[in-house]
């Protein structure tokens, strides 16, 4: 889960990292107590807000309302801001880049740090962290030395605080860019980017992406579902969504998923696809699919291509044949003799044949 800047900064303060004087701005906020000049920042989960005009300096209080209104009206990377963050302007000497995240190269958390922070940074020194021992001051001192920053107790403290936040909140990313160093030697976080681990925050979450096409996809298996969307697109199909269920979901889970995926208008086809399951009960999942299907209004009359294999596949297909006949669903059933890629071709052909 990606936190917005102001939420990230709330966490920063909790862990003792200083942030600029600030106020939250709603669309009906009339005036601010903050001293001018200050900066207004749209609160959206996007990386380059500066580039797309989402960060604006306000020189005088009399300009506030006009700038505020324009920021709430505009859309940034397709998203509108629900809230703005107003912050005092920081006079700084230096902008440092600082982050903790995970590296698949080291298969460990890493500290990334650079003297040249700010927008557009794409290089920093990376220091892998050994989790079998406690984080030591000396680790941070060595890192600072390596990038040529002089020993600075305040900076070491900030890095330690960010590390504590990173491991205590089980974040996937804790980033300060830029970290301002003022001429008084103070360090203030100019921005906050914090991503929390979904398996901690929301363990039941399932990946779902809206792809705006017209073939609904219910795919099982993480890997197979990615492969199948590739195949669908290569065959000229336009997927309506990306969704995936893996493991051995209950009929109810599949039912809810079916309702979610098939509730969008203007669908031309539906593709239920998966490889040879190791342990997924095909009968159970297909039962859930049919139950969900029955609740879609208006009743789907587009072709529904099902390609499945695995435990209880035969029973599942017998049930589908019977239900399809009784309720008038346009089922096209395929077992392992038809490859997943072939079934992609079939669903594209059936869905678009009347065009």
């Amino acid at each position, binding site marked *: 889960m990606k936190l917005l800047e102001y939420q990230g900064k709330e966490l920063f303060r909790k862990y003792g990292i200083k942030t600029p004087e600030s106020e939250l701005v709603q669309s009906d906020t009339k005036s601010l107590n903050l001293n001018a000049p200050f900066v207004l920042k749209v609160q959206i989960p996007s*990386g*380059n807000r500066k580039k797309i005009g989402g960060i604006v300096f306000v020189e005088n209080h009399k300009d506030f309302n006009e700038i505020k209104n324009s920021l709430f009206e505009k859309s940034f*990377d397709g998203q509108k801001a629900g809230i703005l963050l107003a912050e005092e302007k920081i006079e700084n000497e230096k902008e440092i*880049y600082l*982050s903790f*995240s*995970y*590296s*698949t*190269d080291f*298969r460990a*958390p*890493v500290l*990334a740090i650079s003297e040249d922070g700010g927008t557009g*940074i794409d*290089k*920093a020194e990376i220091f892998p962290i*050994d*989790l*079998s021992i406690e984080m030591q001051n000396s680790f941070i001192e060595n890192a600072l030395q390596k990038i040529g920053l002089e020993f600075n107790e305040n900076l070491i403290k900030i890095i330690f605080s960010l590390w504590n936040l990173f*491991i205590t909140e*089980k974040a*996937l*990313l804790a*980033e300060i*860019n830029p970290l301002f160093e003022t001429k008084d030697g103070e360090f203030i976080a100019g921005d906050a*980017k914090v*991503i929390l*681990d979904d*398996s901690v925050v929301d*363990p039941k979450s399932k990946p779902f*992406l809206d*792809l705006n096409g017209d073939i609904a996809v219910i795919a099982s*298996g*993480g*890997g*197979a579902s*990615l*492969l199948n*969307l*590739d*195949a669908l*697109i290569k065959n000229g199909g336009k*997927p309506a969504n990306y969704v995936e269920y*893996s*493991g051995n979901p209950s009929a109810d889970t599949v039912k809810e998923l079916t309702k979610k995926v098939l509730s969008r208008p203007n669908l031309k086809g539906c593709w239920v696809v*998966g*490889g*040879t*399951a*190791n*342990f997924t009960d095909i009968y159970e999942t297909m039962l859930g699919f049919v139950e969900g299907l029955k609740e879609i209004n208006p009743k789907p009359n587009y072709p529904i291509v099902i390609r499945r*294999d*695995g*435990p209880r*596949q035969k029973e599942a297909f017998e049930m589908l044949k019977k239900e399809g006949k009784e309720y008038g669903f346009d089922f096209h059933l395929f077992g*392992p003799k038809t*490859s*997943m*890629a072939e079934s992609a071709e079939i669903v594209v052909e059936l869905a678009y044949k009347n065009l």
Partner: protein
Amino acid sequence: MSILINKETKVLIQGITGKEGGKAAREMMNYGTKVLAGVSPGKGGEKTPEGIPVFNSVKEAIEKFPDINVSLIVVPPAFATSAVLEAIENGIPLINILTEKIPVFDVAKIIAFARKKNIKIVGPSSVGILVPEVVKIGSIGSSLIATKIFEQGFVGVVSKSGGMTAEISRVLTEAGLGQSTVVGIGGDQLIGCDFSDILLEFEKDPDTEVTVIFGEVGGTYEEQLAEKIKKGEIKKPVIALIAGQFTETLPEDSVLGHAGAIINKGRGSAQSKIRALKSAGTFIAETPEEIPDIIKKILK
């Protein structure tokens, strides 16, 4: 021959009294795997319906059965980390983690401690390891249907996706190409053994002539493998199937923003993996069905 496990493998199952643990135990025994003991804190002294003794701790299980050389972790995410650390502490040389949705921080910690003690971790979110017609651990090849799709042969299979281990093996078997060992390494951000680790094992296995990998968008394990192949550390031919090319057409995902660019250096997309593997001389398959033809051409 095989890699990681063989007919001498003696298994401990941590979480054996749970629903998934019990099911895994039964199906492993049906396949011929020697399951010696289980661990389930608070249930020590009991026996499973199959007659497997249950212990309160790994230490007690090992004292009674010092031959145990693999632990299978089928414990809910909240307890998985301490279960794995217990297995590491007791020096079990191979630990296969089936549990899904373990926080990345916990996985990183597991990897750090395993490294210190030179212990191999396969997973988390692994479907298991299977040597056709000999032995299997985990939920790979459950039920009658799936057990029929694996056959003995000379192709090593490694996959991030559990489902694709079965799909690829089925296609291979139908084309008359059996497998030496099939390994599900899991698709989490951080994993114990990656493609390179497993392929280095296959490199030493006289019965493996060629390997198939299934990779996915995300992480850099495929790119790291390409580096190893380029350096000549892996010489046996590799066929790769990489999923997730469609994600390139999505609006640019700036999930990790600057950190992503700094840490991954432009790697991680399906296209980046395919490019890296191609330039290392790996054969790229677009679908599972193409794999047997490629193998037959290579070995001609």
